[in-house]
């Protein structure tokens, strides 16, 4: 078994009378893709919002196991979760910096390394060697990811001018440029056609094999979820109703009930709209 990277224990998030996430516990392992699925409104994105510091959980503990020691995410400020705990995230809707170039989007993700190297800006202004080296490294890393997502030729175009599918991949590449240990992807396949989703599968499994990081995935596209997940957690009304390998989950009666409303044999979970 691979080592546990993220441990979610008794996570509960209440908004007034509404319980969005109810006593949820699960673990995500390093080098594995853990999918969180469930019907709309099941609380998936709320889990991500708790992980990345948007919400303070009402109850619960979110432990990230770093080599240096465990960190409690629920006690950290938003930007520190990215900077220190190294959790990266994408959103359901695209949130690139549309008026920066494709390359700059990737370089800005390496801000903290560059800021330190620049001695807080003065070094950069006078072109000190230390900053130039750091900038060179940042550039190389960015180019590596540009190659992987096949956007080298568009490096100097504004990110907002890219086609939708390219913007999606650029977002993931940008998240990877922050050098994360945990990558949280919120519906990365939303709006992609079947061919693009297949490419996304390859891209994500590639990241898993090469970078050995943990990936948390929220997705409705079952071809993606079933194709690449190592472990699936199913939520409904904020509660965990099932978890396990793709094979177990897809045969679980509770999952089928949540997705289709009534028991039915051999049904593959589909999106409930």
């Amino acid at each position, binding site marked *: 078994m691979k080592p546990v990277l993220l441990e979610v224990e008794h996570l509960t998030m209440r908004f007034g009378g509404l319980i969005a996430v109810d006593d949820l516990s699960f673990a995500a392992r390093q080098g594995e893709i853990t999918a969180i699925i469930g019907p709309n409104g099941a609380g998936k994105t709320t889990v991500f919002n708790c992980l*990345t510091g948007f919400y303070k959980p009402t109850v619960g503990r979110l432990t990230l196991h770093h080599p240096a020691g465990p960190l409690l995410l629920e006690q950290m400020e*938003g*930007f520190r979760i*990215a*900077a220190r705990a190294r959790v*990266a*995230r994408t*959103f359901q809707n695209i*949130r690139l*910096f*549309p*008026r*920066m170039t494709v390359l*700059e989007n990737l*370089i*800005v*993700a390496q*801000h*903290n390394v*560059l*800021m330190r*190297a*620049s001695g*807080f*800006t003065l070094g*950069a*202004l006078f072109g000190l060697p230390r900053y130039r080296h750091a900038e060179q490294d940042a550039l190389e890393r960015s180019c590596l990811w540009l190659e992987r997502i096949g956007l080298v030729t568009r490096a100097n175009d504004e990110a907002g001018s890219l086609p939708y599918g390219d913007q999606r991949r650029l977002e993931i590449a*940008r998240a990877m440029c*922050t050098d994360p240990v945990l990558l949280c992807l919120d519906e990365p396949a939303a709006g992609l056609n079947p061919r693009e989703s297949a490419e996304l599968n390859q891209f994500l499994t590639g990241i898993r094999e090469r970078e050995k990081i943990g990936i948390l995935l929220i997705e409705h596209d079952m071809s993606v979820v079933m194709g690449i997940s190592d472990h699936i957690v199913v939520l409904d009304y904020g509660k965990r109703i099932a978890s396990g390998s793709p094979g177990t989950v897809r045969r679980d009666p509770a999952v089928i009930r949540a997705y289709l409303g009534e028991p039915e044999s051999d049904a593959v979970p589909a999106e409930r709209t």
Partner: protein
Amino acid sequence: MEYFLQQAINGITLGAIYGLVAIGYTMVYGIIGMINFAHGEIYMIGAFVAVIAFSILAMFGIANVPLAILIVLAVAVIFTSAYGWTVERIAYRPLRGSFRLAPLISAIGMSIFLQNYVQVLQGARVKPLQPVVTGGLTIMRSDHFTVALSYIQILIILTTVVLMIGFSLLIARTALGRAQRACEQDLTMAALLGINVDRTISLTFVLGAGLAAVAGVMVTLYYGVVDFYIGFQAGLKAFAAAVLGGIGSLPGAMLGGLLIGLVEAFWAAYFTVEYKDLATFAILILVLIFRPTGLLGRPDVEKV
């Protein structure tokens, strides 16, 4: 012709000062979408620090003019940046995430507070400064008119050009500039990439205040007088400059400053001195009516 040239020189000098102040407005607007009405007062404080620093230097008998100016610039930038940082910290940051009008009202309050604070501490009377930089070049001479370019004008224009080039490089090339542009487009996403958004915003205020301080020192050297009220007028004009150039746009602020300076100088020269402010603000109104995004601003496309 000679008269025209002289007014152009005066206008460019004035415009350089407005441009420096306008950058502070435009950067803050770009990054958090508010008009920092206390920015004019920050500039005024820069001018006061300059007067005080010059008199202290004179007491110690430092007579070397370039050295004195450098020291005064450094002192003014440090003090004024501290004011800029503090204003953001106590008057705007607690209101971030509040409704849009709240920081604006807070800014107006801050502006009034700073004006009165300086008036109480320094008195309401005009503070004079002995001319520090004197002399100049004669560019053109005809029978009845001499076109002069004084050393102080050269100093102002050169300083502004250097600062603006440095500043453009900072925004385009450095990690801080990149972070500022990222924050300008999406604060939340910037934070998720590990950028310390609060610090980036604070630094934006500090940088803007630093530039305003330089403008304040220059204006003190140029006119030789300051009072607690100069920030209000200069602030409004620099704000007009930022809007004219397209608020949020850095080259726009520089261009707008220059244009406002030229309009003011030419209006005063060819029409009436009394109504020169009227001309400036009439331009502001016309721009807002016919081209709300300014000369170099990008149109705000509302996405549905």
